[in-house]
């Protein structure tokens, strides 16, 4: 069974200070100096799919895992990492870097769904949101373009008795929905406690992965010209920073006891109804 997992590499926003949030005339924030990380929901999708593939090792149609990202090359190290931990294929879709895809989930989903159709994948797994745009729409749009059903806020996936089905747990309005579903399907990962983080490869796995080739595709390879990648449903007008922060009053005190007493006397006494 061919499984495609889509992921995005993002800058670690936690490492940016307030003054770093500045942008140029094209509304791009310079993050070249910040380390890159897997988007947390995508990381969960990647690990969940690895676990699922292990369950499918001894069935008639074993899993064939492909990791896909749409970016300009910053994700290559991460693609190698994924090959080291067990992904069979690592694909980067690159586009004309003058195009702004940050707020364009429609185009991202076009690129992904073209690849999925071309390769005959049966399951697509991706995270529910993340990245610069925080769009939260790519999974739904991939499902629409493929004409496949989708399940959102997935927390776990395991194989079912029937070979063309999966058992999927998802979170819905105050409950957990357990479904046995027939493929093909798009799964959108939410907060998965079973697989929150991606496994770490061994040194041997890393060395083996170095020899493996990444697949680099352009939008043209997928049958989409540059005109098709323009954002036609919305236009970015401007960005705004967060409002200036409060002027935080730092409490002095040589010991934690002094600080706690000072906090209580000055600020909490009137606010706590003891």
């Amino acid at each position, binding site marked *: 069974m061919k499984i495609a997992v889509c992921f995005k590499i993002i800058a670690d*926003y*936690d490492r*940016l*200070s*307030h003054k770093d*949030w500045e942008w140029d005339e094209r509304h791009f*924030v310079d993050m070249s100096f910040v380390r890159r990380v897997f988007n*947390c929901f995508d990381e969960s999708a990647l690990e969940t799919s690895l676990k699922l593939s292990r369950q499918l090792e001894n069935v008639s149609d074993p899993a064939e895992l492909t990791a896909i990202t749409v970016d300009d090359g910053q994700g290559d190290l991460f693609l190698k990492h994924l090959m080291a931990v067990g992904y069979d294929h690592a694909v980067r879709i690159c586009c004309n870097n003058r195009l702004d895809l940050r707020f364009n989930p*429609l185009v991202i989903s076009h690129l992904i769904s073209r690849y999925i159709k071309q390769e005959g994948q049966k399951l697509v797994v991706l995270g529910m*949101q*993340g990245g610069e745009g*925080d769009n939260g*729409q790519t999974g*739904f749009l991939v*499902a*629409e373009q493929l004409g496949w*059903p*989708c399940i959102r806020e997935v927390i776990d996936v395991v194989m*079912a008795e029937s070979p063309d*089905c999966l058992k999927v747990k998802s*979170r*819905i*309005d105050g*409950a*957990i*929905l*357990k*479904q*046995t579903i027939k493929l093909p*399907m798009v799964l959108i990962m*939410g*907060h998965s*406690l079973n697989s*929150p*983080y991606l496994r770490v490869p061994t040194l041997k796995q890393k060395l083996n992965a170095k020899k493996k080739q990444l697949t680099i595709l352009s939008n043209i390879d997928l049958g989409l010209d540059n005109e098709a990648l323009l954002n*036609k*449903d*919305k*236009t970015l*007008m*401007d*960005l*705004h920073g*967060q409002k200036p922060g*409060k002027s*935080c*009053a*730092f*409490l002095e005190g040589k*010991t*934690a006891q002094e*600080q*706690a*007493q000072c*906090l209580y006397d000055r*600020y*909490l006494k009137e*606010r*706590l109804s*003891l």
Partner: protein
Amino acid sequence: MKAAIVLSFDITSLQQQVHEINVMLNNMGTRFSSVELWLFYHDQQPEFLPEISCPLSDIKLIKVEYAHSPESYLYSLVYLMGQYPMDLLMFSSDGLGEELATRLAYRLNGSSVLKVEDCSLTSARLEIIKPVYGNNLTARFVLESSPYCLSVAKQPCRPVNMIPCELLKMETITLDQTQPWWVKESLTILDQPKTGLADADLVLVVGQGANNKETVDVLQGIANTIGAEFGASRPVVMNAWADMNRLIGASGLIISPKLCIAAGVSGTGVFSVGIKSSEFIVAINIDSKARIFQIADVGIVGDLATVLLELEKVILVEKDKKDSSHGCIEDTTQ
């Protein structure tokens, strides 16, 4: 501009979802030519409806056969848009609202955006504002294609009132819906129960600075002692140091207590959005440059567990003093 509000009656957070839509309606400078409510229900036809802050020109009640299948809602919405075309559709902030907004706009060649904080109509163009870059920035967009399908941003808990249906003019719509072919078996089980976090006056929120489950357990005990609800940032929940129903932030709860003590949280954009509506914020962090101090009223640079254990002692002493003084008054009156 004609608008419709699309909601599911059966969701547990209906009154909160309507509050969030009311915030959007109140913020909008736009005057609609009409606003309709399209309310889906699964089991019984509603007898009470949530109070929406603008006059409704019509209320349509739509029965949905398969409550867990977004396809059933989408099928009905495509039909409704064919019969009663709208320029703008407003959806709830939950997963269902986000899914329906996105997929419906795709099917109708419209524009969709999620987590919309503000929306206005200027020079016949619909402009919206939404958070981007992990809630560190906001962006203003012009939407190009009607119908515009928006899901609103989450807001702090302020559930609206319910009013009897008999006071309102309504129309019931029933459509044949096919069973989703891909679902072979389906079962719902209860998730963790709701906590009192949404409407608590005092909340202690703990972040990754707690370092391990043992410390988180101690801090949860302190929260109980001082009468605070306990909340946690995403790393704490994902490490299984606290339950998922304690999650605060963009993908969890948005809270607005009178007093919020944020201990050991760095203050990322996605977390801060969850507590920044609090009346008063106390931040405790070992790093004096932590971003949490930018949204805090008072800060303590120090180890969270040590400071909170001392604070617990202070509060217990004060409680004892108060209890004994109450006891004296009671004794005197006897």
